[in-house]
C-alpha cells in the first residue's frame, strides 16, 4: 500500500479568522474510498501568514504543497488529484 496523503490544516489565529474552521470538517467530508488514504493533521500556526508573498490565509499543505485561500471543496479536489496520480 502506498503512503497516505498528508494534509496539514493550519489552525493559527490568522487562518481561523479567515475561515479555517470549515476545513477542519475535512475528515467527515471525505468520500468513502479516500477515508483511509488520507492523514489529517491540525497544526498550530505554520507561519505562512507572516509573509504576504505566500498568499492569503487560510493555508493548508497537501503532501507538502502549500494551498492558499484554501476551502473545503478545494482541499477535497486536490486530495482527489493526488489519489488519482
Amino acid at each position, binding site marked *: 500500500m502506498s503512503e497516505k496523503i498528508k494534509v496539514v490544516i493550519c*489552525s*493559527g*489565529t*490568522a487562518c*481561523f*479568522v*479567515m*475561515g479555517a*474552521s*470549515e476545513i*477542519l*470538517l475535512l475528515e467527515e467530508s471525505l468520500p468513502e474510498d479516500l477515508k483511509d488514504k488520507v492523514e489529517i493533521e*491540525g497544526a*498550530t*500556526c505554520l507561519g505562512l*501568514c*507572516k509573509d504576504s508573498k505566500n498568499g*492569503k490565509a487560510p493555508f493548508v499543505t497537501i503532501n507538502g504543497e502549500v494551498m492558499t485561500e484554501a476551502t473545503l471543496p478545494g482541499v477535497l479536489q486536490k486530495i482527489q488529484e493526488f489519489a488519482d496520480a
Partner: protein
Amino acid sequence: MLNINNGAAQIKREILVRIAKLQLAGKLEEGVHYIPREMAPRNSEPRRCCIYHDREVLRLRVMARLGHSVEDYDDEKKLAEYAKEALEREKPTEPMLTVLDDACNACVRAHYMVTNACQACIARPCMMNCPKKCIDITGGRAHIDPEACVNCGICMQNCPYHAIIRIPVPCEEACPVGAISKDESGKERIDYSKCTFCGACMRECPFGAMMDKGQIVDVIRKLMEGKKVVAMYAPAIAAQFRAQPGQLEGAFKAAGFHKTFEVAVGADITADKEAHEFEERMEHGDTLMTTSCCPAYVRAVQIHAPDLIPCVSDTRSPMHYTAEMAKKEDPEYVTVFIGPCLAKRKEGLDDPHVDYVLSAEEIGALFVAKEIDIGECEAIVCGQQPTASGRNFAQSGGVAEAVRVRLKHPENLRPFVINGLDVAGMKQLKAFGKAAAEKKPCEANLVEVMACPGGCIAGPSVITNPKVASAQLKKYVEKGI
C-alpha cells in the same frame, strides 16, 4: 443557511484587519483611502462589472467598518474624513445596522419562475392546478402572469419536471419579524421600529449588503491611549478559537487589554437569580417564565409579542452583571464586551456599564493585526472560575439547564427551548403569550429562547463553523467547575 465563512464575510474581515493595522501604526487617516484600491487592484479579476464598481462598494464597506451608517454617504467626502470622525467619536451611533445600496442586488420580489426544464407537457398540471388561472403555455413553455400570480406555489409542487422554481429575497426571508421591505427603487430598507437586531439578514444576504457598524476603531483608540480597557468575553468567544485554557486571556493581554473577565461568571449570576426568580414566580401562581439573556429575543417580545412581556424574567443578562462587576472594581475601566452578537451592540449602548461591544470578527482581526497567535500565547489564570453551566450559556438549551441545576426541586421544571427565532419561532412566542395572558397552563413552565439557531455559537458575527465551535465549547465547558 448561508455558510458563515463565505466570500462576503472574508472581504469584511480583510477590511477589519487592514483598518486595525493602519490604526495601530498611527496611519489610519492617511492609509484608509488606499484600502479599496489595494483590495481591488488594477488588472485583478473584478467581482462585479469592473474594479471601479468593486472599489466603490469597498469604500462603503470600509465606512461601515469605521462605524458609520452608509446611508449618510457623501460622494465628496474622503474616507480619511470618515476615519477622523470615527477616531474622535466618544460613543457608537445608532442604528446598529446599515444597508449598502450599491451592494444590494435589489433582488426582484420573491416569485415563482418557469425554467428551461419546462417540457410544455400535455398533462399541464401547473395550468390545471393554478387557482388563479394565471399560467398559459405558449411557444413550448409555461408562462406565469406575474400580475395575477399570488405566489401560492401550487404550480411548483405539481410540476413533474421540477421546472418551476421559487426565487426568494434572502434578507426578507431571513427576517423573522417582517422588518425588511423594498422601497420604490427596489432596494431593501430596514424598519428599525420593528427590527430586533438579531442579525439574520446580515448572515443571509449573499451580497453582504446588510452590515453592522464596527466599533473596532473606538476600542483600538482606547487601547492606544493607555486607558484601562478590560475585555469581557462571552462563552461563545471561547468556542471561536483553538486554545488551551488561559491562552485566550494571554491573547487579550498581548493585545493590550488591562484585564479579562469571563462573561460566564456573569452567566452564573444570571442563572442564580433566574432560578430564584423562577421559584418565586411559581409560588405566586405564575404558569410561565421565559429567559431574558438573549437581547434579540427580549426586543422581539417587546415589539411583536407583548402578551408575553410579563413572563420575561426580570433578571439581567450575563453581560450586564459582568460589566457591573468590572465597573465596581474600578470605575475607570473601559468595559468592552466581546461576543458574536449584533443585538448585544444595542443592549450595550443602552447599558451604562458597557462602553463598547466588539464582534468575534473584530477581536479576531485585532489579533491578526497585532500578529498574535493564540496558540502561542502564555496561559494566564483568570480571577474567578465560572461553573460549567455558566459557560454552557452559549449553546441552545444551556440556559434552561443552568436554571434547572440550581433549583431546590429540579423535577418541577418543564423546560421548552425555542432554538432560533424564525417565523415559526415567532408564532410559538405568540402562542405562549396568549396562553399566559389567559392563565392557561402550558406544557412548559420555563421557556428558553435563543434568536440564533444553535445558540450564541451560531451568532451573526462568528468566524468558526458552528459544528467546530460546538466541539470547542464542549472542551471549554468541561474545564468549568
